[in-house]
């Protein structure tokens, strides 16, 4: 019953959210278990509510054993009291299971809430003056100013200033993050984080109570927990089975009287409780809460349980190459000069094109160029950096003398050169192809109309990613890699990483097209994204996982946010989603399979005419009923750890999983209670309760 099992071992070292205080959970859960006896709360779970009603009736029969007519048998009062006692504990155990699961969520929510104390915010008014207002009165599109040391009062977009922000309260990452306006990723701030240097002007993006932190608290706390589709369907099935057995037991009263073997109401209640699916009924909500909790432990915030469940159904993962399949940073490996230029020429042009480029790629180009002896031979301050954009797919520098150096996608650079009246050579294509075949990314470098050559950027595939894709394939999940690289490069990387399919030279529009195409085939698609232009695709996907480092738009469109900004987590989420369903299915099967043994314990005990069916050789009628009930009660707490941690998931095909789980939970569910009930009976007989 300790910490939830991590679907992937490697990840365990990287999670950091639960600063939650879990020490008092069990004491609190015990208290909660009693509070949940309130009929209004108990009614939410029809199966357990029926047990609770049965407990009360049994209690009445204890006080007045002849309440429902006299029944034969000695020690009726003691027997009734014992049944009442066991039934009461059955209800308590179920309540306890739910309370423990909720308690974990609450503890996390409390930890989060502590960061969200009410603060005063400096609201910038229309005339530019500043007014101090409580943070809770901030609305969307208000402008606020924060300075070093402040807790940022609300979610928002940076529109002025540059500052470092400590986001550890949410992400657990202690290194401060640079925030500045304009850039896609670095411009969004989250309420509850602390600005540790300088100051920022922020436009508030969430109304009070609707901020990221608020949503997160509500979710981990389970306040907004609505039942997921599968959970609803299962609840229906359990309710129907309960009704069926209710009819069976109630009508049995008349049948038993007719054959001259009247049964006491308490024994009938015992039979009913033994037959209805109390095991799964008592643990169902705990399983659901624990599933959400596992997601939260993984540092992912899901907007709904539905999204978590959908993860288990995902057929296709659409993954960006960069950052997910390969390490985010491609490094310059080599320069390939063409058109008669020397290595020194290309190095200096490449350097010139990259001096304003702060990306890891840019820096690696500078480093390689400097290693080759290139130097900046112009005045930096008089030159202008040209930023990369998705449209131009180039970046570079406009040099003081009016000449333009550019580097970028080969096509883009070709276009640039052509527009300046330059000519293209076949040498370029040869070099381009060579690099593509190596799985590298070729960047063309030019100065005005003259192409100097190609930079070979080497992609580094994340270690272990191939195994993950193999596992996914075995689970029936297809992976599609999206990359801006050309076909040849994409193919090499796709092969090396072991993805099933890839889309080369992809634009953001391609992303949504791929998703729609897969969905048209009836598949469920999951994807990750961070940029604003990913938002439509994130919304379109059945499971959209946004990076916390991403823009506000992306986070709002997604149904999950990864606080660690690690796109490979999508793969773990698939596992968690499946585990959630498997746990429900396995415990339901176990619960239903148990009925066989309970029948064989109780029916011969009830009817002397079929006493020979007592194949377990239970000591007496009363001890048989009590043993079955005690088993029925104890199995709930015994399975709480399983409900909370989930049934272990292995990346196998559906059929392999089924044969494994049906063996453990189906066959086990048939056999286990026979042994356990016999064992309890021996103890009862030994104690001499009879």
């Amino acid at each position, binding site marked *: 019953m300790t910490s939830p099992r991590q679907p992937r071992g490697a990840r365990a070292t990287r999670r950091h959210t639960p600063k939650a205080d879990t020490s008092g959970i069990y004491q609190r859960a015990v208290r909660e278990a009693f509070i949940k006896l309130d009929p209004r709360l108990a009614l939410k779970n029809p199966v357990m509510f029926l047990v609770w009603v049965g407990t009360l009736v049994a209690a009445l029969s204890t006080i007045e054993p002849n309440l429902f007519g006299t029944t034969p048998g000695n020690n009726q009062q003691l027997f009734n009291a014992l049944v009442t006692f066991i039934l009461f504990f059955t209800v308590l155990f179920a309540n306890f299971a739910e309370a423990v699961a909720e308690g974990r969520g609450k503890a996390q929510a409390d930890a989060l809430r502590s960061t969200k104390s009410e603060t005063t915010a400096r609201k910038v008014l229309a005339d530019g003056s500043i007014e101090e207002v409580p943070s809770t009165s901030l609305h969307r599109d208000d402008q606020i100013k924060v300075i070093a040391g402040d807790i940022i009062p609300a979610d928002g977009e940076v529109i002025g200033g540059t500052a470092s922000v400590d986001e550890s309260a949410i992400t657990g990452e202690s290194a401060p993050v640079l925030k500045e306006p304009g850039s896609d990723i670095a411009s969004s701030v989250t309420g509850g984080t602390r600005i540790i240097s300088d100051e920022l002007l922020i436009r508030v993006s969430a109304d009070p109570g609707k901020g990221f932190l608020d949503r997160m608290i509500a979710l981990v706390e389970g306040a907004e927990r609505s039942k997921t589709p599968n959970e609803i369907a299962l609840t*229906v*099935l359990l309710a*129907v089975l309960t009704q*069926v057995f209710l*009819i069976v037991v109630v*009508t049995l009263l008349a*049948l038993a009287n007719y054959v001259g073997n009247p049964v006491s109401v308490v024994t009938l209640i015992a039979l009913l409780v033994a037959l209805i699916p109390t095991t799964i009924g008592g643990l169902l909500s705990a399983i659901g809460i624990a599933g959400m909790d596992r997601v939260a432990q993984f540092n992912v915030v899901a907007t709904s349980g539905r999204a978590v469940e959908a993860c288990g159904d995902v057929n296709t993962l659409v993954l960006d190459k960069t950052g997910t399949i390969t390490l985010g940073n491609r490094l310059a490996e080599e320069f390939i000069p063409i058109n008669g230029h020397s290595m020194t020429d290309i190095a200096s042009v490449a350097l010139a094109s990259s001096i304003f480029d702060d990306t890891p790629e840019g820096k690696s180009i500078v480093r390689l160029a400097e290693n080759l002896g290139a130097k900046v031979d112009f005045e930096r301050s008089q030159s202008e950096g040209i930023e990369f954009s998705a449209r131009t797919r180039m970046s570079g520098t406009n040099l003081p003398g009016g000449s333009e150096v550019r580097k970028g996608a080969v096509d883009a650079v070709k276009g640039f050169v052509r527009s300046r009246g330059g000519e293209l050579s076949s040498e370029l294509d040869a070099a381009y192809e060579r690099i593509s075949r190596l799985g590298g990314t070729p960047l063309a470098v030019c100065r005005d109309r003259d192409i100097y050559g190609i930079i070979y950027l080497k992609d580094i595939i994340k270690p272990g990613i191939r195994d993950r894709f193999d596992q996914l394939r075995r689970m029936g999940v297809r992976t599609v890699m999206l990359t801006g690289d050309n076909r040849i490069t994409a193919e090499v990387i796709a092969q090396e990483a072991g993805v099933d399919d890839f889309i080369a030279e992809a634009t953001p529009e391609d992303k949504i097209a791929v998703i729609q195409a897969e969905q048209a085939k009836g*598949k469920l698609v999951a994807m990750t994204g961070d940029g604003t232009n990913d938002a439509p695709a994130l919304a379109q996907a059945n499971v959209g996982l946004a990076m916390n480092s991403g823009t506000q738009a992306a986070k709002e469109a997604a149904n999950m946010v990864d606080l660690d900004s690690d796109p490979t987590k999508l793969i773990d989420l698939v596992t968690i989603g499946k585990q959630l369903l498997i746990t429900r299915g396995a415990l339901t099967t176990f619960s239903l399979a148990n009925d066989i043994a309970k*029948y064989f314990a109780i029916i011969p005990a009830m009817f002397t005419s079929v006493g020979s069916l007592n194949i377990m050789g239970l000591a007496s009628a009363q001890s048989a009923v009590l043993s079955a009930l005690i088993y029925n009660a104890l199995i709930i707490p015994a399975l709480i750890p399983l409900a909370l941690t989930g049934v272990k998931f292995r990346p196998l095909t559906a059929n392999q999983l089924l044969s494994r789980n049906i063996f453990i939970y189906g066959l086990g569910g048939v056999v286990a209670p026979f042994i356990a009930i016999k064992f309890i009976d021996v103890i009862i007989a030994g104690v001499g309760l009879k």
Partner: protein
Amino acid sequence: MFQGIFQIILTLILLVAIVPRLGKYMAQVFLGETTFLDRIAHPIERMIYTLGEIRTDDMTGWQYIRAILYSNLVMGVFVFLLLMLQGVLPLNPTGLAAPSFDTALHTTISFLTNTDQQHYSGENTFSYASQILALGFLMFTSAATGLAVGIAFIRGLSGKPLGNFYVDLTKAITRILLPLSIVGAIVLIIFGVPETLLGPEVVTTISGNSQAIARGPVAHFEIIKQLGENGGGFFGTNSAHPFENPNPATNLIETLAMLAIPASLIYTYGEIAGNKKQGWLLFWMVFIIFAVLIAIATVGEYQGNPLVNQLLDKQFPNLEGKLLDKQFPNLEGKLLDKHFPNLEGKETRFGWAQTALWAISTTATMCGAVNGMHDSLMPPAGAATLFNMFLQIIWGGQGTGTAYLFIYLILSVFLTGLMVGRTPEFLGRKIEKREIVLASVVLLVHPIVVLIPSAIALAFPDTLAGISNPGFHGLSQVVYEYASASANNGSGLEGLADSQPAATALWWNFSTLVPLLVGRYVPIIALLLLADSMTNKQPVPENAGTLRTDTILFTNVTAGVILILGALTFFPVIALGPIAEAFQIGK
């Protein structure tokens, strides 16, 4: 003994031979493919569609349901009026008056729902006109209605449009029931079943008295009675009557006739859904359960009644088996272990084996015809017949049985689907709340309308029930009656005073109406809505994460789900009825 086992095995082998052929043919008929009967059936169908002004386009679930309910209502009213007016209608050689109002109502609904529970004796209650035009008419239409539902359900599951009820109803009659009935009736006539409109023959018996021998247009009535899982006998003693079922040859034909369509329909599913493997797996699953039940019943019947055996033992302490053989040739002389097969309530021309086989077949297929007294079956066979009617899927009723089988399959898919970590899907279509609700309705209806009326009747055994055998057997009698009504089987354990003019007849006639109607139409509505919602779902492509439902493992799981969900519900009843009775006799 070997003769008996041979008879059973021969019947089962013939069944296995029939299934793929008839199953494929039915698939062709309902998929609209060309069959050898096209040339005759086409013009007839066209004429029916034109005369009936029937639009033959596909229906939605509700349209299909409305078509069934309205057409059944009209047919029911028509038949009820015919029965009530039989006194003034022709073809009434014995001059029978109209039956009592409650008998007519019970009979109409009983035949309308393909149940054919009879609280009367045919030859003494209904004229030839009533038997042919009213009851015989419903025997075709109720069977065809069931078949249409089964086919529409299969279509829905496999993502095809549900079809048109009127077209399916017509085709079921013109291409399946009618052709088979014509051939079957001719064969029965050849083997000695009468087909005449003449009144009873009055003969002088050996002792010099005169006796009226009832006869009538039996052969054509008999074959559709079996083939359509109707089971309502022309004569009160049903297929035990020598004019309904004169000899072992007709017995074989009639047994196969009742098994043929429900068993073949599973194969038809495989053809329509494009998964023959699954069709076969399900067929063998049901076949094995069926065979086990036959074994249970035959062993019980073969061993006979321990109380009777003890008596015979005392009477003939020193007799060798062979001697007795000569004395009682019809006992088959199986005196090993001094056990006599149970022959009470059996026709000696069929013996214990053919009667046990028939009893299991008729309760398995919801036919309800009998060739012996089920009341006299030993407890193992009694339990097996009840088990059949509780589960309703060991072949099951015409069309509906196969559909119920898929309800269990859907529930199995739901549980196992969760267990492999995916939203459960069947044939690529997701099983969600709506499907579970509808499947649950089917699951819930049967216990409600079997157990609740049984409990009421047993709570007032003297005033209401009129039970002849109090105790465990009496409980079986009552539960059997309602189970038979709700499962639309129609056979009875008898021993209940349920025919007019008994005082309790009114209670039985009216209290069985609820299980008859609810047991028939509520599941049909749920099945068609379920089919409708499945066919409108976007299919999910299959991959390694998809749970295959056409594997031996999954079929075994389905069998487990059937046993747990279906059988455990009724375990207390079986325990207090046949099992307790067995212990009582065996003491």
